[in-house]
């Protein structure tokens, strides 16, 4: 399994969390809508929900398209989604431009995804799952 998978999952999770969390802020900060200052915990939870949805859809497509084993990919997606949503969600909510929030979230998510793989696998990801090598 390539380490590219880790930061790519983080990038996708971070980008979507960034966009959607930033958009919720934009919507609550206007139009006379009542403002309930969200706590860190609520923002983190919302961020995790968005990140997990994005990352599980991405993982499903990766399994379909690359023939990687499903269980480790979804497990990795779970780790990456939780950590990325937890950290990017509250941050992105306070970035008022969704484009900027997307870029920041994507970069942060990619770094977090890479770090998670370094921590879980010690940076020594196996090549045995690279399609074709085992033929």
């Amino acid at each position, binding site marked *: 399994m390539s380490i590219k998978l880790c930061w790519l999952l983080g990038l996708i999770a971070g980008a*979507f969390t960034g966009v959607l969390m930033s958009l919720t802020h934009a919507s*609550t900060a206007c139009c006379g*809508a009542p403002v309930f200052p969200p706590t860190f915990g609520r923002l983190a939870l919302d961020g995790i929900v968005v990140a997990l949805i994005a990352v599980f859809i991405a993982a499903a497509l990766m399994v379909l398209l690359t023939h990687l084993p499903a269980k480790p990919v979804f497990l990795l997606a779970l780790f990456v989604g939780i950590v990325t949503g937890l950290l990017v969600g509250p941050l992105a909510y306070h970035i008022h431009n969704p484009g900027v929030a997307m870029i920041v979230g994507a970069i942060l998510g990619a770094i977090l995804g890479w770090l998670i793989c370094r921590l879980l696998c010690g940076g020594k990801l196996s090549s045995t799952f690279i399609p074709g090598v085992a033929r």
Partner: protein
Amino acid sequence: MSTPTCGAQQPGTLPSPFTWWPFAVIPVAGAGLAYVWANGIPIINGIVGASGTVAGFSVLTAGAAGAVAVCVLVFYYAFQADGCIIAAQKGDPICVSGIVEDTTDENSTVVDVLAPFAMGPAGAFDLVVKSMYWNFITKNSFWVFCDSVGASMLPCVIKSETACGGKIGSVVGATVGAVGGVILSYIAAAALGGAIGCAASGPFYLLCLLVVLIVAAIVAAAVAYAGAVIGGAIGEGIAAAANANNPVVNTWEGLTAGDIVTVKGNWVTDPNLGNNELLYTTSISRTGNVGFPPPYTTAQADATPADDCPVAPPAPQ
């Protein structure tokens, strides 16, 4: 020339270029979404009646984000250098001869139906080459494939024109689907927002907004993906009808283990695994069959009749 070593050829690992494209796509997509958030999408604004710099355009932005994600996925696969839209890796034209060890049909019905933009080549066959062609297997390679008795093999890949049609169709379908998806996502999100009463005050206001935005993104992505699948299926159908009599594909489909063949094609080093291969095979000339099952040895390949390759291979380096 000495017998090629099976497996890894060179110390170290295959040079892996930095994957730059996501870092190019993200800023462009971010700038695009920032524009949509501030201004909406010119024609679509009028169609769906979106107005205001925040509430209406926020839903459009969420829908656009979902549609863009699917377009990036489709375009990533469709614009690979596989000889369909982007030219395949340019190598040297070579001619080799030997015994077919095995053939592999790389068609996947699941991918054909669910992701036509990601279809690969039609298939491949492994050729146990004569020893005079070992140079084509080992030169500059990082990996050599061998059969179970240690005979080195050259993978020969067969291009699928059907896959190319699917990719082109998917690009068109995803683009059309993205536009339709953004429109439908806005309508769906507005209906959902009205149904669950996001305008109401309360501590769940933020969650309510988030659900509406997630629905907008997912609907837009789903419609764009459906467009890609439908467009790809149409493209596959057209390409299959137009290339029904491709001589290389027809000959490859008739190949069996033990066939003695002379093969021509574009000789390259695979950028992912580092093995040398023919990408793609441009000609297959079948001259007989050895008459017994695999595995085959290089000595058996050397014992086959003289091939019809026009020139001798270059000297080993």
